[in-house]
């Protein structure tokens, strides 16, 4: 039963959706404090290379590799964030884009470690490693009626799903906290926020670092899901793609980034039946979006509208008092 329902193709796409959601959130976090950073592809690369090199050369467990990858990216985020945040707006965007390119050139030229443009192959695969340990202790996916590759991708998707739920929960909470309100205040008006006693440097570096940490985390996961990385994966195309996730979905709320990442990943696959023309539609959707809904698909008023509908329905339930009579 389960075996028939799970197609590795769909599981694969869902795993890319989940990784892209983390990337979308990483840029949403920096945008939420009013900063436009295009360096997330670079941070993603740092996370990916750190984790891949550690697991290949030093046989570090994957989980530790991924965490270290994220931390190293986060540390770079602090180092880059402090000087870069003297800039704002497009100047920050250009500086961070430059940082991303510098990272790519380092990956290309540091051949003794990164193998240059050839890329790193043989990165341990997240699903296959877990599968190996599980079979070693005597677990057989046949019990669930699954083929090996179905089971491997099921593992990957479930791990990513758990991580995603945790990250979304964390950032939804943070948005309601003092930190989130400080971010929002800085985004609205930096001077006003400062005059109200918000330490803007601290909060700006914090949001920049959180973005870098998340991007590095996503990069490390990417390396272990693809099992192969090369510097070309972390070029500026990637930075723009990540930005599109958030801008398309709506950069005001976290759900926008999530929706954007999911939509932009699934659409090219869903449009496969029109083969060569699918990227035309991709482009057309982007143009129409920016023309008619520049704030992105999901914004605060749309969320409130949803909320109202839900409340309205519940309200009528209570109002008629049917439940009491029964």
């Amino acid at each position, binding site marked *: 039963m389960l075996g028939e329902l799970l197609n590795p*193709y769909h599981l694969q*796409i869902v795993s890319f959706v989940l990784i892209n959601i983390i990337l979308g959130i990483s840029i949403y976090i920096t945008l939420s404090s009013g900063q436009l950073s295009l360096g997330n592809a670079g941070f993603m690369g740092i996370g990916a290379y750190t984790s891949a090199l550690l697991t290949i050369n030093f046989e570090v467990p994957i989980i530790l590799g991924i965490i270290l990858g994220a931390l190293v990216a986060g540390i770079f985020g602090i180092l880059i964030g402090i000087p870069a945040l003297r800039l704002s707006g497009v100047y920050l965007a250009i500086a961070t884009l430059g940082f991303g390119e510098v990272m790519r050139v380092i990956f*290309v030229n540091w051949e003794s470690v990164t193998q240059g*443009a050839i*890329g790193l192959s043989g990165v341990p695969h997240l699903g296959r490693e877990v599968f190996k340990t599980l079979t070693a202790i005597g677990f057989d996916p046949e019990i669930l009626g699954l083929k090996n590759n179905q089971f491997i991708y099921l593992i990957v998707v479930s791990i990513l799903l758990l991580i995603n739920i945790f990250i979304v*929960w964390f950032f939804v909470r943070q948005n309601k906290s003092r930190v989130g309100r400080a971010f929002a205040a800085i985004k609205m008006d930096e001077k006003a926020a400062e005059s109200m006693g918000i330490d803007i440097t601290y909060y700006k570096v914090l949001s920049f670092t959180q973005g870098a940490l998340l991007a590095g985390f996503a990069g490390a996961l990417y390396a272990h899901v693809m099992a*192969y990385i090369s510097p*070309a994966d972390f070029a500026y195309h990637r930075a723009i793609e990540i930005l599109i996730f958030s801008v398309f979905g709506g950069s005001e709320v976290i759900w926008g980034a999530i929706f954007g990442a999911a939509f932009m990943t699934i659409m090219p696959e869903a449009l496969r039946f029109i083969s060569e023309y699918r990227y035309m539609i991709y482009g057309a959707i982007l143009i129409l979006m920016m023309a008619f809904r520049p704030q992105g698909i999901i914004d605060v008023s749309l969320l409130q509208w949803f909320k109202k509908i839900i409340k309205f329905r519940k309200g009528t339930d209570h109002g008629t008092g049917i439940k009491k009579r029964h």
Partner: protein
Amino acid sequence: MRKIIKNSYLLISVFMLLILAACGNDTTTTDGNDSEAEKTDGPVSAKIGVISYLTGPGAAYGEAITNGFNLALEEINEKGEVKIELDIQDSAGKQEQALSVAQKLMSSDDIVAILGPTLSTEMNVVGPEADMNGIPIMGTSTTAAGIPQIGEYVFRNSLPESLAIPAALEKAVEKFDAKSVAILYGNDDLFTKSGFDTMKAVAEDMGLDIVTIETFQKGQSDYNALLTKIKDLNPDLILASALYNEGAVIMDQARKMGIEVPFIGGNGFNSPQVIEIAGPASEGLIVATPWFGDKEDPKVQEFVGKYEAKYGKKPDQFAAQAYDALYIMAEGLKNAGEADRDALRDALAEIKDLDGVLGKFSFDEEGDVVMDPTVLVIKDGKFQLFE
């Protein structure tokens, strides 16, 4: 707020269920096809998946490759020894998409083999997965080192740089009695970097004096600095691992500077575009290639004629390699006698001296190419045999 979170999770889970439900239908339909296919007697009929680079900056490669496949497909089905159906899918040159679509092809039971993907970077991702799932996969344009070594289900019929470069270099060294060489390469591309590794190893093996190694990047337009340095060192030959767009510009600037020594290029340098871009400056470029369209072989001329009639342009090496690849698959299916993945793999591994438009073709024990490349030189504005 909590309600929103709850609802969103509900949405996400409903959405995932939908996806999972959709694939349930998929598998049942493919099951149906499978049993039908088994029932029919007569020639082996099989479905082969193709992953190609059809949209994006490298779409020209994918177009040539799929043209080659389609031409071969018509001929093979006309002959009727085997019946092949192709399922052509686009990867847009991205590893993620190549992997997703490979999963799509692999999970449908009636696909017995995969041809492609186009780029070596994509093959590095797709290869291990195909090998694990036990489906034969053959690259028609993946020339980087280490591709067939991924696993025993991974093959290629594209001439690797490790065969092409030594052939060109040996002939050139013999003819010009060269002692010293300068190497330049693009260091930010898998293809050119891999070509450089081979060039360096071959030059060292042959005891040539490497006077300098210079690098450039994709899209660079000014090469005067590195060419000046090379001019001062005065090597007998210049080895350039470059794609044709950069390579042609390099040759143009070198000739203008007065560097007259021959250039030796890898597979990526081998394109009629070089002559178009660099004009007379391209004279003296030596490349080794499996494909020579002016060869006086009736088979080659027939292919060129048919291709030109159908698509309105001359086939390049990618089209020729794809054309031959489908013939190799057809031969494998014929010998296997059934549309089965494992039987096909074993039959493919045993293919020897198959005549194609590229010449006689065999696989070695790793699934790599065994064949003699042709060495060409640009002379009087066109590629000619180099002797």
